[in-house]
């Protein structure tokens, strides 16, 4: 029995070393070997089993394959209603950016529910987790871009995009003005359409840029509460 325990222990250490070495694929195989051994011994309700399962899922995430992790979880988890199962399943869904599903799976766990809620833009989530620093308002970005094209992008921290937007929009506005001054209707139509296309795109683009920036900041902030890692 001692020999077997030592063997499992060294297998686990070997798997962990493989993972740390940057080879999560082989680490997964070793973790599965341990899980298999524990399962045939009837120890699949042990704390150790849950620990190895978690390590294996972390390796799947490091491999960039949360979907594979979900399949593995489905196969290797013995209690599909247990707390750990729901925590890990929700995390994998979260990593696949399916925040709505993750929130449903995490129902009952206030912190994790708030983590998914924060990604879905639920303001109440910040009451529990605190507000991530550096969030900006997409509406302000859109308003700034409506005022001066490109200003909203600069507000989002992308001043090069802002300068380029400003150059395009001001050139087209100048073209439109010159066409109107010459009373040239065909030129006015062409410049007018092009200006409307780029001007509206600039407003929408600023809105999207800030929304995506907020999503990145929030994701980085809430990741500390994820059960894996």
């Amino acid at each position, binding site marked *: 029995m001692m020999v077997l325990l030592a063997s499992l222990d060294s297998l686990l250490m070997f798997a962990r070393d493989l993972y740390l070495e940057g080879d999560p694929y082989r680490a997964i195989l070793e973790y599965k070997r341990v899980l298999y051994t524990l399962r045939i011994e009837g120890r699949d309700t042990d704390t150790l089993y849950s620990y190895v399962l978690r390590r294996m899922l972390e390796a799947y995430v490091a491999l960039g394959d949360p979907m594979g992790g979900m399949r593995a979880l489905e196969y290797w988890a013995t209690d599909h209603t247990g707390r750990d199962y729901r925590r890990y399943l929700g995390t994998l869904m979260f990593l696949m950016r399916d925040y709505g599903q993750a929130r449903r799976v995490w129902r009952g766990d206030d912190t994790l529910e708030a983590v998914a809620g924060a990604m879905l833009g639920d303001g109440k989530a910040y009451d529990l987790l605190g507000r991530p620093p550096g969030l900006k308002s997409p509406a302000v970005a859109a308003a700034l871009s409506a005022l001066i094209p490109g200003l909203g992008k600069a507000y989002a921290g*992308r001043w090069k995009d802002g300068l*380029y937007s400003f150059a*395009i929009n001001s050139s087209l506005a100048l073209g439109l003005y010159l066409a109107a001054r010459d009373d040239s209707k065909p030129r006015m139509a062409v410049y007018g359409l092009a200006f409307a296309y*780029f001007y509206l*795109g600039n407003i929408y*683009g600023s809105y999207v840029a800030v929304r995506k920036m907020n999503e990145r900041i929030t994701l980085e902030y809430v990741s500390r509460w994820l059960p894996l890692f």
Partner: protein
Amino acid sequence: MGLILLLGPLRFTPDLPDLPRTERTIGWDDVFASDPITGTLLLLWKLYRGSVSQIQGEVCNFHPSCSVFGARAIAEYGPLRGLLLSSDRLQRCHPGAYSYAEQYGGVVFVEGRGYKIYDPVEDYR
């Protein structure tokens, strides 16, 4: 003459290539029947791809390129949001865009096109 030169390299195919959901096979008839505005915009895109794009060569900084992104955005999100997204993408496509690559999907090597910023339509859901 200019029009002939412009339309010369056009190559029409019965199906739209590179649509976002490959499990859906959409033909021109389907597109026009279901949504004439989307159909017209995608036809304009087809004209651009067959003419200006071929003359201009490989100049876009992104993958998929701005024209493909625009067509996919229109097909995926409808004409209004698709046009707004394509306009925004055109305004983001400049040499300085590489400094924001980490805010997109990073830089990827595309066969025949070199290193490009990965910015798929799916990221704008």
